[in-house]
């Protein structure tokens, strides 16, 4: 920033936390009007507290300890509640992470959009309505009148986030704070929402402070980036400068966590482990008032593919593409309504009870949400031990030894007496992986196993899966919307849309020469593409 340029927001040596336990330590930053600044940090780095401080919404025991926040020439550190109310919304707007819970489910969109204008302006009802309609159209909602009369549950996550942006931008704030605005969305929707957000803020000259754990995403949109670690700014500068010449180890680690293609040894081509032919999964239609049902929907509609031993097959698609139903149906967690699944050549529909039992034992699953995939009342050891009760002829001693050995393999030796709530997200996902591989399965179905984790943790989990796969020689069916992760870990990629396969190709061929337009759109929307950064493929760790 050149001297003499106007500064919209300036933090100086901001320290906050509970006395004796600071969460942010000496954070300084400045934002010019209309500037787009990214803040990169992982869970626990204090980025969320930073946004709350800028809105005067620090949760109870946390308080400002020292430093100053200057906004448009005013000091924000000792405003009264009344004065804050004039700033929040009108001057500083906020878009939250979770579109599913940031809109009030009991109020119509019209009521929620109009609320801010009613408070901060003297417009008439008709003027407010006109403004709301215009704003909804500019966030790309075509049936704006219909939208105003609807309730939040009638919209998808991406649409809700658009509505959220519309409601914030209606007041034309000078500063927009976006806290992980697209983390809960799939790649294509993520790009659409961010394009709309950047477009609108450029039109209104609104400055943006975007907070994310994803360096690639921030780098794509921001001009300047601030890297936050343990509550302190460790790196600060232009995006290109930070990416090309990071000054700090931590930044290098973040850059190394950006997805990059890794060499993979070609798996031996033998008979397929799992073959799926013309699989159909039907969801019954939702029940309407008085028992009428909507017509059933085919979530998976005639899908065929093979998984070979020691191979990683990725299934890619947006929300609603049927990829999750496909993974569940492959293990018969949801019943398929048509088609055939063969495991090691045998049709699972024709299996005897004991054969089916062996099939179940040979196929294990890693779930998406490490916070809900484990029984909160069980210790890590009993969680990992549980699948072993289905392994025949295993003594108690052997079970214990096997469970402890697997915990060590996933890097959690000594954690066996902990409960899930005492672990971080990455540690929990390691427990989930340990539970899945303890029976020495031949196939692991991993449903979005890393999408709830921070970037550096994502990398670690992918490395772990990769290493375990090399050691234990299982196949992975890797379900994800994140093409970056897929590019790192897969041998073959299946792209799904609307329950059907649109493209099925070896990884390198698919990423280098995509044929289908949907695949191309997905690739274009991935933030890691187009960031050409030189790193060794798997970082330095293994």
């Amino acid at each position, binding site marked *: 920033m050149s001297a003499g340029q106007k500064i919209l927001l300036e933090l100086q040596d901001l320290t906050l936390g509970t006395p004796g336990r600071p969460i942010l330590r000496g954070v300084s930053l400045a934002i010019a009007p209309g500037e787009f600044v990214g803040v990169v940090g992982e869970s626990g780095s204090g980025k969320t507290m930073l946004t709350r401080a800028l809105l005067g919404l620090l949760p109870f025991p946390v308080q400002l300890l020292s430093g100053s926040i200057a906004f448009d020439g005013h000091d924000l550190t000792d405003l009264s509640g009344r004065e804050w109310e004039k700033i929040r919304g009108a001057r500083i707007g906020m878009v939250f992470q979770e579109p599913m819970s940031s809109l009030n489910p009991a109020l119509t969109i019209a009521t929620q959009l109009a609320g801010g204008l009613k408070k901060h302006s003297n417009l008439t009802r008709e003027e407010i309505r006109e403004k709301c309609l215009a704003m909804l159209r500019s966030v790309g909602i075509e049936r704006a009148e219909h939208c105003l009369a609807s309730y939040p549950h009638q919209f998808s996550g991406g649409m809700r986030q658009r509505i959220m942006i519309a409601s914030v931008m209606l007041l034309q704030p000078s500063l927009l704070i976006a806290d992980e605005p697209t983390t809960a969305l799939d790649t294509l929707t993520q790009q659409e929402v961010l394009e709309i957000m950047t477009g609108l803020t450029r039109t209104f000259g609104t400055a943006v402070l975007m907070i994310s754990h994803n360096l690639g995403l921030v780098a794509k949109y921001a001009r300047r980036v601030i890297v936050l670690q343990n509550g302190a700014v460790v790196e600060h500068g232009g995006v290109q400068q930070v990416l090309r010449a990071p000054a700090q180890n931590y930044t290098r680690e973040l850059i190394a966590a950006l997805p990059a293609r890794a060499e993979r040894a070609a798996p031996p081509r033998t008979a397929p482990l799992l073959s799926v032919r013309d699989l159909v999964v039907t969801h019954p239609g939702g029940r309407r008032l008085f028992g009428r049902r909507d017509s059933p929907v085919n979530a998976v509609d005639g899908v065929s593919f093979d998984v070979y031993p020691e191979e990683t097959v990725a299934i890619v698609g947006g929300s609603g593409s049927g990829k999750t139903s496909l993974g569940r149906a492959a*293990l018969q*967690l949801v019943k398929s309504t048509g088609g055939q699944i063969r495991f090691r050549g045998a049709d699972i529909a024709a299996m005897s009870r004991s054969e089916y*039992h062996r099939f*179940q*034992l040979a196929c*294990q*699953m890693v*779930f*998406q*949400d490490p916070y*809900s*995939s*484990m*029984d*909160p*009342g069980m210790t890590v050891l009993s969680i990992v031990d*549980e*699948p072993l*009760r*289905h392994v025949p002829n295993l003594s108690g001693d052997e079970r214990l030894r096997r469970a402890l050995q697997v915990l060590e393999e996933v890097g959690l030796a000594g954690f066996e007496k*902990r*409960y899930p*709530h*005492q672990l971080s997200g990455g540690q929990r996902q390691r427990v*989930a992986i340990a*539970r899945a591989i303890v*029976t020495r399965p031949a196939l692991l179905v991993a449903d979005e196993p890393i999408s709830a984790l921070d970037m550096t943790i994502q990398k670690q989990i992918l490395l772990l899966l990769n290493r375990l796969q090399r050691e234990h020689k299982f196949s992975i069916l890797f379900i994800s919307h994140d093409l970056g992760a897929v590019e790192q870990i897969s041998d073959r990629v299946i792209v799904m849309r609307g329950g059907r396969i649109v493209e099925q190709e070896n990884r390198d061929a698919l990423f280098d020469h995509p044929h289908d337009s949907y695949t191309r759109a997905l690739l274009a929307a991935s933030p890691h593409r187009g960031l050409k950064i030189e790193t060794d493929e798997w970082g330095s760790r293994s």
Partner: protein
Amino acid sequence: MNRPRRALLSPGGIAGIILAGLPAAVAGLAVVWTPYSPVAMDFDLRFASSSWHHWLGTDQFGRDEASRLMAGASASMLVALATVTVATFAGSILGALAGYFLGWLDAVLRLVTDSLLAFPGILLAVAIMMALGQTRYGIILALGLAYFPTVFRVVRGHVLSLARREFVEASRAMGNSSAFTIYRHVLPNCRSPLIVLATSMFGWVILAESALSFLGLGVPPPTPTWGNMLAESRAYMDDDALLSILPGLCISAALLGVNLLGDHLRDRFDPRMRDVR
């Protein structure tokens, strides 16, 4: 994450154990020994005030109040404990089945419990008592039937949300049967609401039993329970208020104790609460 371990007993827990444990101990003692027979009448000693022989005085028939309170403790506690057990077991097993399997089983069970809930609990118990005849076991069955739909509702709702959690799906993914999944993963996670509900229910049952006794449908006299002692003494409130106050105090103290104990148990059994200070 090396937080200091929480003390084994919170002050609330200690108070709960004392307040609930004392009547329980007295109830146990009363089964084998009371100072006098709780039903022996002595018309020369009606409404005696407390003395060396009769610690808490005597009632309108000259029966020893202390012995009656002791015997009442065992009768009331037995009815309450048995009823809560019946209601909790029936309610939680049926609730877990309904919430886990849904479908026609859920529809039928909901219809039954909703119909039961449509009657006021006492009215239902009165009707069942009429049908069964006035015995101690009749009361237990009647009150158990009246209170199990509440347990059913709570457990079913809780299981509905649990069954959608991924760890239940994970249990199925590793090949566990439905029965094992319900027993190992679903029911243990219903423990917190169940403990809270069961302890409050303990209180409702003692009160409901008094109400039934008041209507002459409770444990048949002359067997004393806290409820029917309270009911009988009503007519003599002006002569000897202590006859009403004492069983009332016993009921209140026991209820307070059981509820404190319930909160304490819930905190102890829920690993997520253990680190919260």
